[in-house]
């Protein structure tokens, strides 16, 4: 079943390239993927914190390299996120003017790469699947992008290529840090070896730094974030949805999956650096976001900013804060995908996303206005959305790290500063909503029409996901926490 979810998009992409009807194939594939993931979700054994649905195929015995896939609670949540966003992105695509088949194939490749990476237990394929998305992203922005698409496409591709090669060095170094007898690409084997203390503190520090920079570039950690806003602003909406919503979570997922269980000492050593950088994401990028005058750029920057909270949850390294990080990854993925989708629809109808030219659109597009409003509330972190659950867990968890009654340590200071981020995001999100949908409707937009009823399904799906887990965050927590508890308790 899991293999089906991984290979369904890849096979569908190849079939589409060969000449099958693009939209039909892609829609069928993404609905099937979503259904299969729901099945996995239902049949998943929550009391078991090991990988489930494991299949393995040896590739190279001498390198201990095998194609091994499986999911635990952590990857299950990510796969669920990926399939929901894929379905929404494919649904929102509609007809494409040129090279329609190639467009859908690129989307499906990105989705397949992300799902493959989340479901790989083998380090090599974990890395390789993520890279599957690189060239499709380049093509999507380059061929179908808008605005300064050429520069944006080059920037994202070269940034991500260098980032992932730095990550590759980190992974190779990680592999070599283990004694020859236990070297393996299997994450479970590495974890067992790390539990026995077979990776030295010095090696952990080196590897963690490389992984932090590599993953940091992929996740747009300050100061490696400059590729993100431009790329998302130029990308066609479905590409931005998949990339900002799903693919970017790969780096965070990688840190949770590798750095926390394997490199606790390295994480401790570089905590202060990471905290300073993530405050750069929250405060500096947050202020930059307020200054944006275009909706697409603002959304791009806001997605960079929100990465800061998730990094805070990971840096906090308590069970509560890392669980919050996972919840926020899921929540942010859905919320930002929804906002990018609606921004894309606006661009289709009005041809501009400059705030000063828009306004009052809720009068002609009531449904889009409602959906955008809910997306904005989710992004701010209003209670009732899973974003709120994630953020509050992150703040409490990080604040608890190293807590003493009589004085503040770095995490307490960082949490207090990060809380201001909520104010910042309220400012820019609500302002964007006001400037786009409220106020007086300009004559130019009198004839703009609302979303077609068919497009309301994916919107409802995404908002449903946000609200569902927002009211019952416990089911998410119960899925994720056992994994993180094992990670955080065995090695310390």
């Amino acid at each position: 079943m899991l293999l089906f979810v991984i290979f369904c998009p890849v096979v569908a992409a190849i079939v589409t390239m060969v000449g099958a009807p693009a939209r039909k194939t892609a829609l069928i594939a993404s609905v099937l993927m979503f259904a299969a993931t729901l099945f996995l979700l239902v049949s998943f054994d929550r009391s078991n914190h090991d990988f489930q649905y494991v299949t393995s195929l040896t590739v190279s015995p001498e390198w201990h390299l095998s194609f091994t896939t499986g999911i635990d609670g952590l990857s299950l949540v990510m796969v669920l996120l990926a399939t929901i966003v894929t379905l929404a992105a494919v649904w929102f695509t509609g007809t494409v003017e040129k090279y329609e088949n190639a467009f859908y194939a690129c989307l499906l490749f990105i989705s397949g790469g992300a799902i493959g990476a989340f479901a790989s237990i083998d380090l090599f394929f974990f890395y390789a699947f993520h890279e599957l998305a690189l060239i499709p992203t380049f093509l999507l922005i380059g061929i179908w992008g808008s605005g300064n698409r050429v520069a944006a496409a080059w920037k994202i591709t070269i940034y991500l290529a260098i980032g992932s090669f730095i990550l590759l060095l980190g992974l190779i170094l990680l592999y070599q840090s283990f004694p020859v007898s236990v070297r393996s690409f299997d994450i479970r084997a590495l974890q067992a070896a790390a539990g026995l203390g077979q990776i030295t503190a010095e090696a952990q520090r080196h590897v963690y730094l490389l992984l932090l920079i590599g993953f940091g570039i992929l996740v747009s950690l300050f100061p490696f974030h400059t590729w993100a806003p431009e790329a998302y602003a130029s990308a066609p909406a479905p590409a931005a949805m998949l990339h900002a919503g799903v693919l970017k979570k790969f780096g965070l997922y990688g840190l949770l999956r590798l750095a926390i269980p394997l490199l606790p000492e390295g994480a401790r050593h570089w905590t202060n650096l990471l905290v300073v950088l993530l405050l750069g994401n929250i405060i500096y990028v947050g202020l930059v976001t307020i200054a944006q005058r275009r909706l697409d750029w603002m959304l791009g920057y806001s997605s960079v900013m929100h990465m800061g909270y998730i990094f805070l949850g990971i840096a906090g390294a308590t069970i509560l804060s890392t669980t919050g990080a996972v919840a926020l990854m899921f929540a942010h993925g859905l919320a930002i995908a929804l906002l990018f989708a609606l921004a894309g629809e606006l661009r289709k109808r009005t041809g501009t996303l400059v705030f000063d030219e828009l306004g009052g659109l809720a009068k002609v597009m009531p449904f889009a206005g409602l959906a955008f409003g809910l997306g904005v509330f989710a992004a701010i972190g209003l209670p009732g959305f899973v974003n709120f659950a994630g953020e509050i867990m992150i703040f409490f968890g990080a604040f608890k790290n190293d807590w003493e009654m009589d004085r503040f340590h770095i995490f307490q200071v960082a949490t207090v500063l990060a809380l201001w981020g909520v104010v910042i995001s309220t400012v820019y999100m609500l302002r964007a909503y006001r400037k786009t949908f409220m106020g007086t409707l300009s004559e130019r937009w009198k004839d703009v029409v609302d979303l077609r009823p068919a497009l309301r399904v994916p919107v409802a799906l995404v908002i449903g996901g946000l609200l569902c887990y927002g009211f019952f965050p416990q089911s998410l927590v119960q899925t994720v926490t056992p994994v993180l508890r094992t990670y955080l308790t065995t090695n310390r």
Partner: protein
Amino acid sequence: MIVTAPELEIAVLVLGMAILLLEAFATKIDKRVLAFVALAGLALVLVASFFVAPGASTSQATGFWSFYTADRLAIFFKQFSLLTTIVVLIMMIDYAPVVRRSFPGTTPQAGLGEFFALPVFTCAGLMYLVSAIDFVFIFVSLELVTISFYVLVSFTRRNPITLEAGTKYLVLSALSTAFLVYGIAWIFGVTGETNLQRITEAMANPVIDRGAALLGLVLVLVALGFKIAAVPFQLWVPDVYQGAPTPVTAYLSVGSKAAGFIVLLRVLQPFLTLPQIQRLIVLIALLTLIYGNLAALPQANLKLLLAYSSIAHAGYLLIGVACFDAAAIGFYLTAYLLMTLLSFAVLIIVAQQTGEKIADFDGLAKRSPFLAFAMLIGMISLAGVPFTAGFLGKFFIFYAAIAQHQTALVVVGVITVGCGFYYYLKVVRAMYWQSADKSDQIPVNALSRLAISVLIIATIWLGVYPQPILDALKR
């Protein structure tokens, strides 16, 4: 069936002579028949080579076996040379119209016979070269390769650019040969031996004059640096690669380079006790990486771009040499063979319709989705995207470098990989983003279509499942 390794080369030489004789006596036939004969013969030898049992030769170090080895590495690279030659011959069939234009006035197919026969002799030279463990034999087989290339490079001799390329190759190659002989003389003077095994034993002797041996080795390195296009001996590469007939360029950049690297590995073996050697190789590797990649960035001509990228790939291979990892080099060369020949094969077909500039590839995705996809796979493999052979090649090279703590090489390597993504994706951009002036289809004949498909599948297959090559290289 029992075959021994030397019989393979004899078979190839006989095949070459047979083709020449056929050309001389059967004057009426379509000359492309000769190419098919050569293809069939080489394919037969390739099949036979899988029945050769690899055997160490150094124990019986007398007579013929004192300068010839048939170890796994040698067998593997014999197969490598055969495969390269086969693909090059297929390209040459596509390229035949261009060659014919260069021989006006005489009979309609003049010149084609030699054009198809010479690669067979070059192949024999390459096969001898990878087995050579004696300086005298290295020299002789290297000359067999080089002299065939003198002719091949300047084959379309009416074209002034080709003539310039031929002259440059001749002069600089002769110069490097002179360095090689001089170096061999120094090493012979110091150790009294030309056999690499016995040189190793002689170098272990503490009374040996290490300075003089080092000088000899550096002179040999100059000559080999010329063959593998390492900086600062790369100056000939852009001009010769651009001027030579395109299949010959492909042959030069794959066959000649691979043989150069095998000889380099074998020649370095006795001198690993000299501490300066590794530092020297690291320095050359750094220069090659930086020069090759930076010079490739602004290229607008695809053939020139591939020339500079071949210098860049020599840099990655030199990282492997600096770490002395024969398996990593072998795998990288295999990947390099597949992706480079793939790119050249597409280039030859497209260039005859439009041209060699990157701009001539505009809108190829519309005109021929098959060729565009083939080029896409070639380019992303050269750049190093996972699930292609090129990525695993880089993976093994970087693995070796990290294991040996070669920080400088790793850092420069990653930065130059970033450059590589830019210049290779430039071609992808042209094919998929830009729109073409012309929109007619580009015809591809069945043989080329087959060869290109096989190369695509092999590139992806090795990127997912590298084990067969790793097994073949295990010593």
